[in-house]
């Protein structure tokens, strides 16, 4: 048994009669190298650990955590969680997860080669990324950041109800944020590459992406307001899916915060839309064998051919909805109890390239980047308004760059207005895959 699981199991074993205890233990090692002007700007090596304990007694839930695995802290954390539970109000559906007989998919998420990769080699990757980005185009005037980051992560969940599971994974990425300048005007663009070990990273592609995204915006103009068809770049689509994922959780539905609450079985999207959450796909950056409560992850169909088919559940929302957990308990670290959320959202891709999709559009906007998703999108009401930049589409071809505009619609309408989906499915460093998405009738607000 892994050391972490042994520790989690021991704490869960301290449950008293009539009490449920869940222990979540994390150990993480991270290296971050930032390069600037051919030198190391900073090199951080970090090792962190912590424990979070959830106690449920008489339907009342309490939680406590500590950023250490010292023996003394374990007992204190459990005692504090117990004390916290005493002040909560009872809910018959509260409780930790129970084993449900579903075996986790066996995924290769841990690659020894990352642990064997030397610090000097990591430094070299970051410096090469910075150099390659600067060299990619004469108009690249500077680098805001060029970095290599990796993590070796292990966690364990154990409960007094018999859950005992471990997650081990490695991940690394390089990312560059480039500045391009021409005629006194500056534009920015990013590029990145992901892998389970550094051998999978494509530094030159990341550098080229950053340079292209920055330089192709040079000369951008602020257009006048129009209603038009937009093509969302895969990066933008993935961010949109993450927001839609929030509206499809059992928690949002049960608590009256989902615009899809009463629409099960109805057509909520264009018939070309099939949306799954599937953390068992090993290609997903966020793939995992077990969820935050220690249950096996599984594929859940949320929307099939435009029809709403399901919601995501953790053990609480599953019980309260009269169904079961879909293995969608998610944690944001050890400092809080698991919530419900999407882990790896993916749309069924289409058959056409982004260029082919664009060729059908007379007047449109290829959206390369959006800003202010947290301030202008309300997943409860569905209002959607973000800052945007990208390229105008005229007569089926890419035309002038555009800046300082917003695009606006509602989440409900965006799903109904989908006109096409690309074949360019790409897993990104977030809980969703990207794919080009064509959406009609969006308001572009400009000068």
């Amino acid at each position, binding site marked *: 048994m892994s050391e972490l699981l042994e520790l989690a199991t021991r704490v869960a074993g301290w449950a008293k009669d009539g009490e449920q205890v869940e222990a979540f233990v994390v150990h993480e090692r991270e290296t971050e190298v930032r390069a600037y002007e051919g030198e190391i700007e900073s090199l951080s090596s970090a090792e962190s650990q912590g424990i979070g304990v959830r106690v449920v007694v008489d339907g009342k839930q*309490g939680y406590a955590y500590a950023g250490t695995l010292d023996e003394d802290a374990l007992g204190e954390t459990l005692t504090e969680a117990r004390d916290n539970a005493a002040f*909560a109000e009872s809910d018959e559906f509260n409780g930790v997860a129970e084993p449900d007989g579903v075996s986790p998919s066996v995924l290769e998420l841990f690659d020894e080669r990352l642990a064997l990769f030397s610090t000097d080699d990591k430094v070299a990757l970051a410096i090469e990324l910075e150099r390659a980005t600067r060299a990619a185009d004469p108009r690249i005037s500077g680098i805001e950041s060029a970095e290599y980051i990796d993590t070796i992560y292990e966690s364990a969940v154990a409960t007094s109800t018999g859950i005992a599971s471990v997650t081990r994974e490695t991940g690394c990425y390089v990312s560059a944020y480039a500045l391009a300048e021409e005629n006194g005007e500056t534009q920015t663009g990013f590029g990145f590459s992901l892998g389970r070990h550094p051998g999978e990273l494509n530094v030159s592609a990341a550098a080229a992406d950053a340079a292209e995204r920055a330089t192709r915006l040079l000369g951008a103009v602020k257009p*006048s307001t129009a209603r038009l068809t937009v093509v969302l770049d895969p990066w933008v689509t993935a961010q949109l899916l993450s927001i839609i994922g929030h509206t499809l959780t059992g928690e949002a539905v049960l*608590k009256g915060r989902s615009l899809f609450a009463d629409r099960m079985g109805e057509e909520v999207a264009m018939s070309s839309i099939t949306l799954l959450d599937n953390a068992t796909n090993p290609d997903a950056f966020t793939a995992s064998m077990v969820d935050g409560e220690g249950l096996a992850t599984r594929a859940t169909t949320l929307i099939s051919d435009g029809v709403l088919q399901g919601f995501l559940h953790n053990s609480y929302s599953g019980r309260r909805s009269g169904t079961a957990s879909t293995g969608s308990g998610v944690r944001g670290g050890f400092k809080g*109890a698991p919530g419900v959320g999407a882990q790896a959202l993916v749309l069924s891709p289409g058959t056409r390239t982004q260029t082919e999709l664009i060729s059908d559009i007379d007047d449109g906007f290829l959206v390369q980047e959006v800003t202010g998703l947290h301030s202008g999108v309300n997943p409860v*009401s569905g209002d959607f308004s973000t800052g945007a930049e990208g390229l105008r589409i005229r007569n089926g071809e890419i035309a002038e760059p555009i800046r300082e505009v917003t695009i606006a619609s509602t989440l409900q309408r965006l799903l109904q207005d989908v006109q096409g989906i690309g074949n360019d499915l790409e897993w990104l460093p977030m809980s969703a895959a990207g794919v080009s998405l064509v959406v009609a009738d969006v308001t572009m*607000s*400009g000068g």
Partner: protein
Amino acid sequence: MLDTELINRTLSTALTTGGDFAEVFVEDKRSSSAVLDDGRVEELTSGRDRGAGIRVVVGDTTGFAHTADLSEEGLAGAARAAAAAARGGGGGVREVNVSAIDVPRGTPVRIPPEEVAKATKVGLLTLANEAARGSGSAITQVSARYGDSRRRILVANSDGLLAEDDQIRTLFSVSCVATGDTGLQTGRESAGRTVGFELFDETDVEEMARRAAERALTKLNARPAPSGAIPVVVGPGGGGVLFHEACGHGLEADLVAKSASVFAGRVGEKVAADCVTLIDDGTMAGEWGHFAIDDEGRPAGNNILIKDGVLTDYMWDYLRARKEGRVGSGNGRRQSYQHLPMVRMTNTYISNGTEDPAAIVADTESGIYVAQLGGGQVNTATGDFVFGMTEAYLIENGEITDPIREGNLIGNGPEVLTRIDALGNDFAMGSPGMCGKDGQGVPVGDGTPTLRVESLTVGGTAT
């Protein structure tokens, strides 16, 4: 928090590979929170995080490591790891002797949250829930959150500095959902200060809850927001977010140094309308972005960034100021001991103006009035920024009329600053915010009087 001799030894260890500068940052943070949702007190959470971050600087290279082990061996291990990352030419033994600096302190906390019974904290949630639900039958969901934190920090460095701080913050928020024929709408209200439980002597949680509920109910009748460039009046307090994004981030010296700011090289130039004086002030006792020392041990400062429209200075962290041979501004902050510090804002505000706020609205033929803002984002290199409106109305013929739906506004910082054509005399601080930069969140405050921007692009759907 740590013995002075142990600090000296740790700093000496950190300098064994020839570093120019070494620093130990020790943090011990305790947090507690309680959440009410869906009609009941759902959960209480509490925890502790303690550790040290050590950095070593050689030339332009920084090495950093952190540890949760505050023993002599734990600290020495982190010091060696940070030193290995920043290898200089030299070596050998360098003695360090730190001594405590004198730091001006704000008002002491009157009621430490850790001394308040959990039942009392939970009681506030119940009051807020009942008040919000009592505001109308269309209020269909309410959540309320109480949170407090006590963060003790110690900073020591090889320049001999030793400083400590004890930062206590208390926060309360209420969110409501209203349901009507047009669907769901939300309303939120929050209060947070760098004080203890005495926050609730001045903050009536029931009143807050009613305001949050009212906001959600009002929006049930909201019309689609306009689209396009129009005059925008921002109410008192709220406009701070606008300046935080339009120019605050662009005045951070780390971004300026990399030419990743449209304000680089513009000190002494006119960058804003005459009426604009922008100040970043970490010394404002009790405010959400207040502290006695920053996370590099420098006393908080009161820094004038823009004076009567002229750019006077940037915000600085200790290392960048040290390199430039100037005094730091007390803006070096970090999320926790696990993070490197960088230049961050504290409480950023626009000085009070002279005009009657009612007259500013009356003088606006057609536009929108933004009563509450909801965060924003900026690209400092291009200056383009967005901020959200979570409560806003149309202005028609000089009068505030129908509520409009939520959305973002977009503008370009340097342009917007010159287009501020009215400033009211009703200065107020805004809601407590969490500012994110490079993945690190820190508490920040802001404030403004009522102001008008002659033209900003509103991101609605109505044409």
